[in-house]
């Protein structure tokens, strides 16, 4: 960055610290981008400079405690987009800043499968030269490795695709690219989007950015690398896919805001399928405003994916996250936003019984080095902190004007959201990959078991399970959303099963389980295609809290006691023989750690 630009940048950042980023207005033109079918080019989106300037409005007040960015990678997506647009930051500067962090810390984080520095810098130089006015011009993103990216290897961390180079872009990535975004790289993931990130044979790869030396702290899966890349400031935002929690879980694990939109809201064309009826693409972002910006561009009808056609129009998500007077009011119905709380959400956990020193094969089979007795106590302390964080979150929302509504479970909730009904999804993956199963089951590595089980579910039970999902949806709509607008969730599976939207967001931190800060996440669900309600409430919540502003320390800044014997902290142990243990996920983790 030149001295002049640096000075302008710092001046601008000072101003931004005193005034919230006017991102919804600044980037408001984007809201038209994805509303029409087949709109891929910036021209088609109407995101030209005049439109952006026209919609620029005065910013509102910021949340308290907004930290001064120490470097360009501290900027949120929306902040970066605005500074790039105004010429206060160059795309090359921004890309170089991210590449520098990747070069320094990626060996420890292992968030990426592939990094494309040369093409990223080329794209940045073009962006600076042409001064494009598309809303994300020059903003570097990380894309999950199951999104097709033309000319860039796309493996889904699987033997099946280990040398696959697509010749076209997934629609949702194409929309981000056409909005000016720059591909930094493809992120690590669980093999074929099951479990947390690992090699196809199950060796753990990506670590949690908040605990880079502690493999007992999951990064969340399967969009593990997408979460770590954003949390560790190696990308401005990222994309993920969710079939069973894979956006909301890693977002919760790493203090991010991730939204899993309703089925069909974002095209799945060009994304490697795992389960046709439950795959949902969406963003993992630093806050609700960034998530709204990403989703605004990704969403919309796509002729290549019939699931995205004929749906309600894409709302203006950026308008939804704009600060409004009058507290949390429902924009369409009027009155206070009603937040439903399902039973158990605030239940105090039972103190654990002493499990004794003997190993329990059901717990210890994943090879944790954390002593069993301590692990049980740590889990208990984390559960206590989680309930406290939930209570605090609801109190804040109540204070902001939301109406908190206590609900019962829908009639058949327990049965229809059980492990067994969740398994109805499995035949779909077996069918998708049947040729590979017939060719050589070893291609599936550690992920094989659910693919085999999917072949074993009789068709009658599959049909019955599909009917049961409609029963579940009907009960959710009547018995839950008949009384509230948003509802608390403690697990993603129920809403994943019926295709309803979910948002994951940070609600606190605890130190009791590991001795250093670990994020605690919250999750809300909403009615079909009500992503704007989720984003509006969480954006308002984030104006009143600062959990989303906290960033993990760099690995090199962690005190030795926090490193757990993990080496000098510069991550240089990766290529030449890692110091990290080679522990692996096993067959059972594949069923339990999200997909």
């Amino acid at each position, binding site marked *: 960055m030149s001295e002049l630009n640096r000075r302008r940048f710092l001046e601008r950042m000072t101003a931004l610290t005193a005034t919230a980023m006017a991102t919804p207005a600044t980037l408001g033109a984007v809201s038209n981008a994805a509303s029409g079918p087949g709109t891929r080019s910036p021209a088609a989106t109407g995101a030209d400079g005049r439109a952006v300037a026209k919609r620029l409005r005065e910013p509102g007040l910021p949340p308290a405690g907004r930290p001064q960015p120490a470097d360009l990678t501290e900027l949120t997506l929306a902040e970066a987009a605005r500074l790039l647009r105004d010429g206060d930051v160059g795309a090359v500067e921004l890309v170089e800043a991210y590449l520098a962090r990747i070069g320094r810390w990626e060996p420890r984080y292992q968030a990426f499968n592939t990094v494309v520095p040369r093409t990223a810098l080329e794209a940045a130089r073009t962006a600076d030269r042409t001064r494009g006015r598309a809303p994300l011009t020059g903003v570097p993103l990380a894309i999950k490795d199951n999104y097709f990216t033309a000319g860039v290897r796309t493996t889904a961390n699987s033997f099946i695709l280990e040398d696959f180079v697509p010749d076209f872009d997934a629609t949702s990535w194409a929309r981000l690219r056409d909005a000016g975004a720059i591909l930094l790289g493809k992120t690590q993931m669980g093999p074929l989007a099951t479990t947390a990130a690992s090699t196809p044979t199950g060796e753990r790869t990506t670590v949690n950015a908040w605990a880079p030396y502690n493999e007992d702290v999951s990064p969340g899966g399967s969009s593990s690398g997408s979460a770590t890349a954003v949390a560790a400031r190696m990308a401005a935002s990222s994309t993920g896919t969710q079939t069973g929690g894979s956006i909301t879980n890693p977002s919760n694990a790493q203090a991010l805001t991730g939204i899993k939109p309703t089925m069909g809201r974002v095209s799945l064309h060009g994304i490697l399928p795992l389960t046709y009826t439950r795959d949902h693409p969406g963003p993992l972002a630093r806050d609700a405003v960034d998530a709204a910006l990403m989703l605004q561009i990704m969403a919309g009808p796509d002729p290549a994916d019939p699931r995205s056609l004929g749906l309600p129009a894409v709302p203006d998500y950026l308008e939804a996250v704009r600060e409004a007077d009058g507290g949390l009011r429902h924009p369409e119905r009027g009155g206070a936003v009603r937040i439903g709380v399902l*039973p158990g959400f605030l239940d105090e956990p039972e103190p654990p019984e002493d499990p004794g020193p003997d190993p329990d094969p059901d717990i210890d089979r994943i090879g944790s080095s954390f002593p069993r007795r301590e692990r049980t106590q740590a889990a208990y302390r984390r559960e206590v902190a989680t309930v406290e964080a939930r209570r605090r979150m609801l109190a804040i929302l109540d204070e902001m004007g939301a109406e908190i509504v206590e609900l019962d479970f829908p009639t058949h909730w327990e049965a229809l959201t059980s492990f067994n009904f969740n398994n109805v999804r499995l035949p779909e993956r077996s069918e998708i990959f049947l040729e590979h199963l017939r060719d050589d*089951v070893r291609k599936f590595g550690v992920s*094989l078991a659910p693919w085999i089980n999917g072949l074993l579910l009789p068709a009658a039970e599959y049909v019955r399970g599909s009917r049961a999902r409609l029963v579940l949806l009907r009960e959710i709509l009547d018995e839950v959303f008949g009384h509230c607008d948003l509802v608390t969730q403690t697990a993603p599976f129920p809403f994943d099963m019926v295709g309803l939207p979910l948002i994951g967001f940070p609600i606190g931190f605890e130190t009791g389980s590991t001795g250093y800060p670990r994020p605690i996440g919250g999750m809300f669900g909403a009615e079909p295609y009500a992503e704007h309600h989720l984003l509006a409430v969480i954006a308002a919540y984030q104006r009143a809290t600062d959990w989303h502003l906290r960033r993990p320390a760099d690995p090199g800044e962690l005190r030795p006691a926090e490193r757990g014997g993990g080496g000098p902290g510069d991550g240089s142990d990766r290529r030449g023989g890692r110091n990290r243990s080679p522990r692996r996920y096993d067959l059972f983790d594949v069923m339990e750690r999200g997909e």
Partner: protein
Amino acid sequence: MARRPSPPRSVASSQEVTDEQLDAYIRTRLALAGVDLSVLPEDDEDASADQRRIMASARRFLRSTPGAIADFEFDPMGPAPAIYPAEVSARNHE
């Protein structure tokens, strides 16, 4: 307070099936689908997958999931299957 409906009854017959019967079913079904597990090691904890663990996982699956789904009491006039429930709901303006 919470209404916690009882989970559906498990199907007694599936609990009475022996490992040998399930193994025969699994192997027959996989053979019909053209899937060959014999390329995996028989029993190797260090392998990412082996026949012993895959078969054990399949037996657990068969003992629980099909029976639980089949045993869910369903109104015969209940909904026709729809694999994208949220979309159906939106298109019907529910």
